C-alpha cells in the first residue's frame, strides 16, 4: 500500500511516503498507525500522538476507524492550514 506523509509528519519521518506490504491484521486507520509506529523512532515520534494526526484514505478524509483493507493510498498528516 502507498502511504503518504505531509506537513510535520513528513518532516519528522524524513520521507514523503513509502510503499509497504501490510500484515492482514491491519484493517483500519488506527491499526495502520500502530503498525507504522513500530517501524522505528522517527515514525513513532511523528505518529505517536494520534489525536494530532489526520488521515485521507484514497484522497477522502477519514477517521481512525476508516477501513483501509481495499485502499490504494493512505495519507497521514497534521491538521490542515490552507487559505
Amino acid at each position: 500500500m502507498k502511504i503518504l506523509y505531509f506537513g510535520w509528519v513528513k518532516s519528522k519521518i524524513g520521507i514523503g511516503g513509502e510503499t509497504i506490504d501490510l500484515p492482514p491484521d491491519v484493517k483500519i486507520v488506527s491499526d495502520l498507525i500502530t503498525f507504522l509506529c513500530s517501524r522505528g523512532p522517527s515514525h513513532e515520534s511523528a505518529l505517536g500522538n494520534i489525536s494530532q494526526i489526520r488521515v485521507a484514505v484514497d484522497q477522502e478524509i477519514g477517521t481512525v476507524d476508516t477501513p483501509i483493507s481495499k485502499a490504494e493510498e493512505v495519507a497521514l498528516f497534521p491538521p490542515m492550514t490552507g487559505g
Partner: protein
Amino acid sequence: MIKIQKTDFDISVELKLLTTGNINIGGVASFVGLVRENSDGEEILTMTLEHYPGMTEKILQKLECEALDRWSLENLLIIHRYGELNPGDQIVLVITTSAHRSAAFESCQFLIDRLKNGAPFWKKEKTVRGTRWVEAKEEDREADERWQNIIKY
C-alpha cells in the same frame, strides 16, 4: 472554477474573466489571503505551502459544488497557490458572483472558512530562528464546523 498554481494571480483579470458577458451578475464578492510579514511577533522570511496533489483538486471541486448547490450564484473561482512565497504575497483568491450581494458574500466566506480547515495545504514559515510548521487555529476549525452544521439541514 478552481486553480491550484505556483504563480501569482491578478484579481482584476480573474474578475473580468468571470463577469464578462454574464448579464445576470450584479455583485461580486472576493477574498484575498496574504502572507503576513509577522507571525507571533516574529518576522517571516518566507512561507512555503505544501499540498497534496490530486486530493487538493478534489476537495476544492467539492467545495465549489457545495457552494453552487447552496447559493444562487452565477459562478465562482478559487485560486490557491503553493510553493515558496514571500511576505505580502497573495496566497489564495476566492471570487463569487451573483445577482444578489448577500449570496455572493455568504458563499465567499463559506469557501474560505471551509478551505482553511479542510483543504490539504500545510504552511511552513522560515524565520531567523529556523523553520516551523504553522499550527492549525482553533478558530478556523470552529468556523468550518459552523458551516458543516448549517449544511446538514
